[in-house]
């Protein structure tokens, strides 16, 4: 079984490039160049240097002693929360902006939900001295003000998406429309393993540094590069793609993807795509998609803006369909409680997205010999307002 993308841009029956003809030349230009650039020595030298000296890689693989005692197993946290800007998102934006430069592009656009990818893109643009336009849903702009201000301070222009539900899905539509209107000079930095081929593969490759480091770190710590489990949260799925990447063909490693169940999978306020979605086409790829019987895309819900997306990347749809990864879910409440548990057990305040992965420790069972890696994709500073305002509601015992 092949879990990577095939020559036509598909993962099994998912993927492809379902884009209007207006975007064909742009996407084709990227498709022809991305592997050549990524594999070039000049790219690798510059990318690795920036990851090391600017992003702060390698990030630690931390043996969480008290967490391990609590769950009677061996829990390791991959500390992507310690990356510059506070999440794994910057691995991708640094890589893509280096590709954009090598393709002669002079203007960068991006979409963002919670603002983490927007901040990571604005950061990369500031570093490279390139103009940056971030499309963000008007609703998200209201509820993620600090990240909006961070982007502006970094010199980015933040354009509110006023259409649809005014959240991530609509910001992505607006970024695609921006690209249609500015096809020649503009490079679109997509923030997750979504979009038309080659984006899912390109973003997965740029995030693959996560699993590459996990292997070498585990080798040093335990003498075996393979964990028994890798757990990551999935919205579009970029941190999971990175954490799974080098383990896809290592069948001894169980891959666990945690989706956001919102107020409950079947509550009508959920973003658990593999449970609620069926194959469809959105934002340029065929994937699992939450939609009505008539094919209209359904508004998802999650307490975590980064998981609040009605689809998943085509690679994950394929991992789900083939059973290579196990898909589970955590509710808003479970994630919230896991965040407080982690804060008080290990002194680490996780992002609400990453808290979904931590919550899986509670629902899964492990042997005491297991080696469980949880990808802690981001830190929780951006979520403090939510942690403060909803504490009463979620932490009371019932």
């Amino acid at each position: 079984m092949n879990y990577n993308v095939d020559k036509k841009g598909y993962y099994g029956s998912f993927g492809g490039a379902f884009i209007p003809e207006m975007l064909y030349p742009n996407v084709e230009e990227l498709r022809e160049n991305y592997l050549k650039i990524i594999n070039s020595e000049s790219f690798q030298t510059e990318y690795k240097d920036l990851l090391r000296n600017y992003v702060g890689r390698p990030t630690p693989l931390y043996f969480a002693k008290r967490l391990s005692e609590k769950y009677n197993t061996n829990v390791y946290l991959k500390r992507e929360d310690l990356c510059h800007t506070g999440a794994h998102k910057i691995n991708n934006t640094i890589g893509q902006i280096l590709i954009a430069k090598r393709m002669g592009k002079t203007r960068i656009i991006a979409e963002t939900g919670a603002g983490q990818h927007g901040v990571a893109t604005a950061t990369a643009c500031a570093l490279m001295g390139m103009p940056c336009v971030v499309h963000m849903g008007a609703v998200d702009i209201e509820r993620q003000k600090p990240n909006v201000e961070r982007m502006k301070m970094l010199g980015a222009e933040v354009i509110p998406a006023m259409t649809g539900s005014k959240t991530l899905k609509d910001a992505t539509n607006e970024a695609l429309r921006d690209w249609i209107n500015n096809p020649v000079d503009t490079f679109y930095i997509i923030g997750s393993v979504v979009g038309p081929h080659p984006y899912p593969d390109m973003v997965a490759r740029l995030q693959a540094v996560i699993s590459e480091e996990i292997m070498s770190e585990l080798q040093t710590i335990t003498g075996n590069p393979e964990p028994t489990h890798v757990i990551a949260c999935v919205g579009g799925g970029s941190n999971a793609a990175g954490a799974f990447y080098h383990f896809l063909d290592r069948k001894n490693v169980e891959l666990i993807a945690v989706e956001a169940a919102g107020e409950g999978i079947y509550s009508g306020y959920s973003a658990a795509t593999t449970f609620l979605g069926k194959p469809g086409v959105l934002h340029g790829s065929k994937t699992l998609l939450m939609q009505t019987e008539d094919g209209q895309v359904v508004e998802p819900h999650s307490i975590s803006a980064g998981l609040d997306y009605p689809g998943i990347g085509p690679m994950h749809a394929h991992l789900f369909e083939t059973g290579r990864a196990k898909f589970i879910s955590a509710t808003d409440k479970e994630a919230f409680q896991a965040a407080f548990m982690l804060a008080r057990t290990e002194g680490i305040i996780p992002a609400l997205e990453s808290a979904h992965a931590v919550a899986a420790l509670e629902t899964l069972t492990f042997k005491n010999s297991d080696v469980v890696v949880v990808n802690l994709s981001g830190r929780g500073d951006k979520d403090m307002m939510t942690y403060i305002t909803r504490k009463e509601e979620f932490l009371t015992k019932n």
Partner: protein
Amino acid sequence: METTTKISNRLTELFQKKSNNLLNIYFTAGYPAINDTVTVLKALEKAGVDMVEIGMPYSDPVADGPIIQQSSLDSINNGMTIKTLLGQLKDIRKEVTIPILVMGYFNTVMQYGVEKFMQEISAIGIDGVILPDLPLDEYTEHYQTLCESHNISNVSLITPNTSDERLHVIDNITQGFIYMVSTNSTTGNDAKKTEDNHDAYFSRIKNMGLKSPRMIGFNIKNKETFEDACAYANGAIIGSAFVRMLSTSKNIEADIIQFVQRIKN
């Protein structure tokens, strides 16, 4: 691409009879009100348009600007679905003779069932489809035979950035017409004036000796832009400007007649 089977329908026959100044009007199904679809269609034929393009609404129409986005959203909220639309058009060929195309995004057609969709629109007497996010290679690999066996013209788009090589591929598989997107833009983008080099693009295509008829669309909105486009192609397509007129109309039929007269006369 040599395997293309030539089809014949109202659209291909129209281009045989008339080769210039063809006017195609786009409107969104079920808009302004759910039952306006047939009313608008009949008024357009009465007003003298040469063909129509009926939009099937989708929640995420990335190739469309604000006006068609809003009409699509209103249409969905009015309850429009493909099933409802095909029900409204069931007996349309008893009343309307001009070519009819349906335009929409691939996901809604995929959920309806592509084969069932092609069968049913063909049975009703619809002549063509425009699915902007169904890429050319997906079409040729999976759906070309299906469309041709049902006498449905699949209309492909080209843009100022489409390479000559790809233009020839598109020209070879086109049944009906090539949809020339006038500029690098979403639909109805007033801020984006026609390209500085629009003459160069329009002339380049005109002089390529393509065998397929060509219609120019996107940002065609009045007599001036219509006539300009017609100088380079067989006709032009008006969408957003027409939908904008519908959005404020108090008397749809009279306003449609007037709108079309202003373009054509």
